[in-house]
């Protein structure tokens, strides 16, 4: 990206941008990258000071743990020093250690996207209520295509179980692609009735249910809790309705005013979603 190229209208691009992700190759000499990072974020900040600036320290799969921490600390230090020198202390950079060989890249993208969702708090609250009433240990609201999660409940995220859930989505979509299309090949693998239950040999149950066209809820719970499946499904039915309402409100208020404030209040809207059959 050459900022000095007159055909590159960075003003237009940056104005509409919510987040800028800058990727640094951790396995290479990153001095030049840091310089470019500084130029890029300063220019972007001038155009749009509300933008989120995210730095991915990438390809860390080849580094030892100590080296990872050291690299992150070093890059963090240098980048912030550069900003302080330029008088841009208000510019906040977030750093993430990523690699494509594990799920850290998904985790990082999830966090970046979550920062951009105005309804995040509402979604988290809904998830908290849902899991505590249903005896579920952890729940994620996943985007099925990209496998990044846009919300989770307040309990801590365990990277390994996150991986397992991504893989579960893969299994569900892949199997649905093979058997779940109509005879003429139409229809889609992931539709309103999509759901899956996977039981592991250590009494863990993974439960996936469709929430919207793009989102799925993936829960992890114990086998004993799963015996109350009827209760869980009823709670899920309420939860799903609420999620639809949150996003409908988001759409209407976005149309009416251009600036999103904190989580919009829920309005009792009628919507034409298909009523779910309570099991």
């Amino acid at each position, binding site marked *: 990206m050459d900022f000095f190229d007159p055909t590159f209208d960075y003003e237009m691009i940056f104005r509409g941008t919510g987040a800028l992700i800058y990727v640094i190759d951790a396995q290479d000499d990153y001095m030049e990258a840091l310089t470019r990072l500084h130029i890029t974020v300063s220019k972007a900040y001038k155009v749009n000071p509300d933008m989120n600036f995210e730095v991915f320290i990438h390809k860390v799969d080849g580094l030892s743990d100590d080296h990872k921490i050291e690299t992150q600390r070093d890059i963090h230090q240098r980048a912030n020093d550069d900003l302080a020198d330029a008088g841009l202390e208000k510019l906040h950079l977030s750093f993430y250690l990523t690699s494509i060989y594990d799920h850290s890249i998904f985790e990082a993208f999830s966090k970046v996207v979550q920062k951009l969702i105005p309804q995040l708090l509402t979604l988290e609250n809904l998830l908290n209520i849902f899991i505590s009433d249903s005896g579920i240990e952890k729940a994620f609201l996943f985007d099925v295509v990209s496998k990044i999660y846009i919300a989770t409940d307040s309990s801590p995220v365990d990277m390994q179980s996150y991986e397992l859930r991504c893989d579960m989505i893969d299994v569900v979509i892949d*199997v*649905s692609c093979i*058997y779940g299309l109509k005879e003429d090949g139409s229809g889609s693998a992931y539709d309103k009735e999509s759901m899956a239950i996977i039981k592991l040999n250590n009494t863990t149950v993974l439960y996936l249910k469709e929430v919207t066209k793009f989102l799925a809820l993936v829960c992890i719970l114990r086998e004993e809790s799963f015996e109350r499946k009827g209760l869980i499904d009823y709670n899920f039915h309420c939860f799903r309705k609420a999620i639809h309402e949150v996003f409908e409100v988001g759409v209407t208020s976005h149309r009416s005013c251009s600036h999103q404030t904190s989580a919009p209040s829920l309005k009792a809207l009628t919507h034409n979603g298909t009523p779910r059959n309570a099991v």
Partner: protein
Amino acid sequence: MEESDSEKKMEKENLGPRMDPPIGEPEGSLGWVLPNTAMKKKVLLMGKSGSGKTSMRSIIFANYIARDTRRLGATSKMFYLIVKSCDLNLNNTLGCSNLIYHICFPVDVEHSHVRFLGNLVLNLWDCGGQDTFMENYFTSQRDNIFRNVEVLIYVFDVESRELEKDMHYYQSCLEAILQNSPDAKIFCLVHKMDLVQEDQRDLIFKEREEDLRRLSRPLECSCFRTSIWDETLYKAWSSIVYQLIPNVQQLEMNLRNFAEIIEADEVLLFERATFLVISHYQCKEQRDAHRFEKISNIIKQFKLSCSKLAASFQSMEVRNSNFAAFIDIFTSNTYVMVVMSDPSIHIPFVESVRMNWKDQP
């Protein structure tokens, strides 16, 4: 009896998990607690060094995907080193005829005893290499290696520049089979077919197949063309496993009855360790001809993820508005997958039917 010092040293050096010794060591010798080798039938996977056996084995059994196998080193070299060091550390009381060795793979494999279909053990052998030590060892242990063999799978690298030599080694293996396990089934895999130009593949394979058939007489061999980069490897191993099941026709008939009772679209039977499709019944025409390999791969990928959490999956149910699929443990060696296009069928019904069928003779 305790582990011998050489064994302890081996484990300390972190050379990976132990494998079943490829020869029939008498039980209990030198403190090696062996599974009863007399009970176990062997599946020999043989071929020249570098022909692709370890990758194949890893993919089919230890659940590695094709990309990871590039990190596997040369098996025979490792083997050679282990035996040599064993030599030096040997206590004199052991004597030369009772060498203990380990076949250790440079990569940690999931199963240290690769077993499938209950009582078949997989043994991997490099033969026809440049290594004189290997050669001698192989020759001296020939009878032991080829005794009790149920299946011989011989891998040929399609790109090999030493066709004559490959055939020569193959034939000497066949001689040993004829002597020691004349009832063994023989399969030849013409491997690494992805390296051949697409329009040449059929031709080259047919040529090789004819040659091999001719050279194998009086024994009969079945030939397959394979590559780890597409579904041909799975198809070949599926066919091999299919032929190893004692009463597969009976099984298929039972499967058909079962499927008809529950009005399923399709029922698949998988071998548990490898998820190769052993048998299937289909009532409705299915769109995807490659679905068996795909399903196998999908499940194995998921099994691999589960194993990272030290768990394994027991059962699975997947639905959308057009179908419902159930995968569950069937017998000690098999999984069953039932696919229905009527998604209103509930699990308990399917399970109760399955339970009933299991109890039938």
